[in-house]
């Protein structure tokens, strides 16, 4: 999240069940939710929010495939062209012996690639600015946030009545 001087109106909930109900209610009322924060992944939240499946696994598969190719081709190049050595009377090109390295590089490429992709997509990593609405969101509170930068008074009161109707324990505003 970049620092964009957004005025955020957010409500804190005590329980995931209340949060799920509130999010469904917001969708039914056609309120434009900016984001939802929770200390842990809440089951069933993604479909209610209408989020599509993450494409990170696909990226991981591609990284893995690149890793497998790199490992296998590198071993082939080393043992057939660059530095051919006979081990135990085996031919230079001995595919079974290359498999462990191929496997390791597949795992390495897939995992490291996915970590960096994840960091880049989420804007995380060294030097990233991460505005936090409320510290307790990482502990035991569940939060629904609305972007209130350009909201009219009428909209703000609508948000506030939504929070009180759905059982938010606290309602705050913060500029991030």
């Amino acid at each position, binding site marked *: 999240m970049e620092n964009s001087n957004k005025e955020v109106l957010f409500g804190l909930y005590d329980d995931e069940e209340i949060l799920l109900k509130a999010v469904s209610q917001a969708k039914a009322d056609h309120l434009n939710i900016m984001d939802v924060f929770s200390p842990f992944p809440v*089951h*069933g939240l993604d479909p209610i929010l209408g989020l599509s*499946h993450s494409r990170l*696994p696909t990226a991981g*598969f591609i990284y893995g495939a690149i890793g497998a190719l790199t490992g296998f081709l590198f071993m082939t190049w080393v043992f057939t062209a660059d530095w051919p050595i006979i081990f*135990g*009377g*085996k031919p230079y090109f001995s595919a*079974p*012996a290359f*498999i*462990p390295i191929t496997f390791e590089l597949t795992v390495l490429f897939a995992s490291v690639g996915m970590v960096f992709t994840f960091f880049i997509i989420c804007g995380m990593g060294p030097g990233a600015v991460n505005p936090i609405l409320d510290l307790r969101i990482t502990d035991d509170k569940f939060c629904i946030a609305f972007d209130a930068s350009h909201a009219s008074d009428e909209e703000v009161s609508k948000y506030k009545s939504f929070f009180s109707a759905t059982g938010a324990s606290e309602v705050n505003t913060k500029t991030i």
Partner: protein
Amino acid sequence: MERFVFDSKIKNVLFGFMGLGVLCLAITFFIDDELHTRFWTNFLHNSVFFTGIAFISLFILSAFITAWAGWYALIKRIWEAYSLFLIPGLVLMLIVVIGLWGGFHHLYHWADAEAVAEDSILLGKKGFLNKGWYTVGTLIIVGIWIFFATKLRQLSLREDENQGMNFAVHRQMRVWAAAFLPIAGFSSAAIIWQWVMSVDAHWYSTLFAWYTGASWFVSAMTLTIMTLILLKNLGYFAKVTPEHLRDLGKYTFAFSIFWTYLWFSQYMLIWYGNVGEETIYFRERLDNYPVLFFGNLVLNFVLPFFILIREDNIRKYGTMMFASAFVFIGHWIDFFLMIKPGALHTAHETLAHHGATAEAAEHAAEAGHHAASTFEIGFTVPGFLEFGTMLGFLALFLFVVFRNMAKAPLDAVNDPYYAESLQHHA
């Protein structure tokens, strides 16, 4: 409460396939060589395969109970019914035992007293590989498995009658399940050495028991998926959602990879070590069974890997049915490859030894140089008779399973994890 009704329509289909199996076994018996090698290898192959599936189902149940898993509570009756196939499984294996004592078959080289007497390797293994231990091992080990299977089933049924929030029965189940896990680990290895690995009596691999166990595991999972989809189509298990299917698929995927890992570890170490006594196992299979040898890897690794890796595939009933059927056949072929080459070799050697008839002399000449190097349906590839026999055994398996399933409600509503299973979200 919903109960499975084992109606005559399903029964007739199963009886039909059982008839087909018996017919195939009979045909095999009469067109066979004089030792009835093809008949007995088919019998051993399928008995070991389906008894193993029953054992693994019990292992899965115990592991899940011990791990406090919740998602499986909706479908645990399937595995309970599977595990009760151990009783007919013991009968099937006892037929092999009777054949061993009566000298009806020559599946095991170590059972041939004359061959053992002049063979230093077989003499060295005589303490474990003998008829007595084979019988005792089969009886005691499968006996213990049956004891635990009936115990867990009994407790699970008692739980059904339980009223209110009383977990006393479940606590008992937890103790029995946890006790079974180490027993299952050690005993399955011992029984696999006796039943399967000793077919190649000269050869051994320390990985073999795990590798075979992994094969059983994937077979059990794929068969569970197929049974579940079948029952769902018949209108049962309406509460089972793609979320449960996904977990079953996840296990199939994970253990397919685990199987491949073990298969490759066994292969690569032997290939690298290049010790004649060890490489002969793979030499034999690579030379005479190349299609099955590589087909085995394609069906059991490449196919499940690329199909089940996708999140959307793993939740589709049709795709899972298709993938499960192929992987199931793949592991059946895996067992074919474990048993047939060794047994055929033993048969050739036996025929060469006691070669009196003209046909035996012919076999003996063949055995002299390159045993089993020719293409033989039923040995180097499964023929129609093998598939027919497999369908027969499968029908017997399902018959026993459905009969046991009909005896209890399909929903274990008093299982403490039942509610968790209902709202399972993967």
